[in-house]
């Protein structure tokens, strides 16, 4: 039996309460809460991946707005997912592995299978899935538990993940333990 982890990516106030995607977050939350509950009840390690950025981060110039600045309420995990049921990992870049302790923690716990949830599918989910795959983890993305502001980006990203670095599964498959 593989040791397993659930990653919940970027479910932070600045990103989730943004009006461009808040409706999608509201629809996503019941699925995500089910996934977290299943992981918690079945002994998965759970990691919440959160951006923690400096006010002058170069990403802000590119995307034109500021978000998840360290020490601000906007960088906190959304109320709907409180209390958190796992470890919070702070990151500066898209991949959850980039200059973070995630890889070490997963290896210390001998985890070799990762399920991914959160957002955005075409950015942080996709790069983290690739990074995890390159580091030797068995990666699955739960399609019902990820979102993109634009649906076509989600579809494209899931196809890419399925083709190159991991599996795309449903929440039912995750909860049934069939994959």
């Amino acid at each position, binding site marked *: 039996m593989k040791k397993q982890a659930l990653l919940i990516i970027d479910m932070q106030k600045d990103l989730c309460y943004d009006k461009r995607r808040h409706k999608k977050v509201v629809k996503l939350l019941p699925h995500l809460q089910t996934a977290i509950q299943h992981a918690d009840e079945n002994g998965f390690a759970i990691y919440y991946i959160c951006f923690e950025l400096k006010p002058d981060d170069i990403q802000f110039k590119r995307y034109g707005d500021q978000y998840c600045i360290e020490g601000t309420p906007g960088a906190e995990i959304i109320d709907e997912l409180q209390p958190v049921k796992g470890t919070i990992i702070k990151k500066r870049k898209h991949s959850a592995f*980039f200059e973070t302790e995630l890889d070490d923690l997963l290896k210390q716990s001998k985890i070799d299978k990762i399920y991914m949830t959160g957002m955005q599918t075409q950015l942080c989910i996709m790069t983290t899935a690739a*990074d995890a795959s390159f580091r030797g983890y068995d990666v699955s993305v739960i399609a019902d538990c990820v979102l993109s502001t634009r649906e076509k980006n989600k579809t494209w990203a899931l196809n890419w993940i399925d083709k190159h670095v991991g599996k795309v599964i449903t929440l039912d498959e995750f909860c049934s333990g069939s994959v």
Partner: protein
Amino acid sequence: MNHKIELAHGDGCRATLEFVKNEILARFSNPILDPCDDSSIIDITSKEIAATTDSYIVDPIIFPGGDIGKLSMCGTINDLVASGAKPLYITLGLVLVEGIEWHQVSTILDSINQVITEANVKIIAGDTKVLPKQYQGSIIINTTGIGIPVQQGKYYQVSQAQTGDDVIITGTIADHGLAVISAREGLGFEQKIKSDCAHLDELLLPILTQENGITCMRDPTRGGISNALIDIAESSQKQIEIDWDLIPIQPETKFGCEMLGIDPLFLANEGKMIIVTNSNYSASLLKQIRAHPLGVASALIGKVKKKTDTGMDLLMVKGRKKINIQRTWGMPIPRLC
């Protein structure tokens, strides 16, 4: 020793002198450089010399597979080799930004030393300046390279490609471009893809001493192989046709480019050469190149053809289609960036 570069290190006073003595001369000492006169005197007996100059900026300055120091030396050496010259001397202009960590500067200077030692090239002149910290970036390197033709009177120019010539690339494409973007943006591909940054003198100089059929060469750095091939086609008044299926590319680079929405033909290479050669010599050249660790993945990727009335310089066969590859205004912007 201070742990960061200060403005004083570029002021020409004691801090500069100590930097030059302890960091530059300690690594690059040679009889031409050591006098530290206003100019260096070099004795070149060759009737012809090859000269090239380049400035290097890269973010991050230390990346998977290399750093800006290695990049600057390899780039200069490869430019000389592309013209058929044996690299002899390089000048080193350092523009540092105040506040850069000392250990990073040391790493970069050590890389420079390693490359010039391996390639038996001397640093013969240099300069160090420091910009105030409000300038973005952390280090710029300017070089001038000097070499002499491997065979007197024999040099290679991009205008010399001939109809019927074969086009060879000495290894996988786009690795440097993807590795640097990935390291800058934290995309995870740096786990698998390292920059191909390498000096090609050891691979190519032996070939240049012999009858080789080569008509021209180009190192496909920024702009990727597409711009390098268009340079050759335009200058030679020919059309070049390449076959996508023959172009060597690592799978992770391929799907990384797909993720970023950029064409690997446009991503930089820093340890590859495009070689255009008389087709009678292709097989023996490839055999020789593949025998060297830097040329293992080399491949024949296309052919030089007569220029047609369409004016198209570079065509790529992909499946049943022939695609006209054109220059872009600038580097295509990756989807994430």
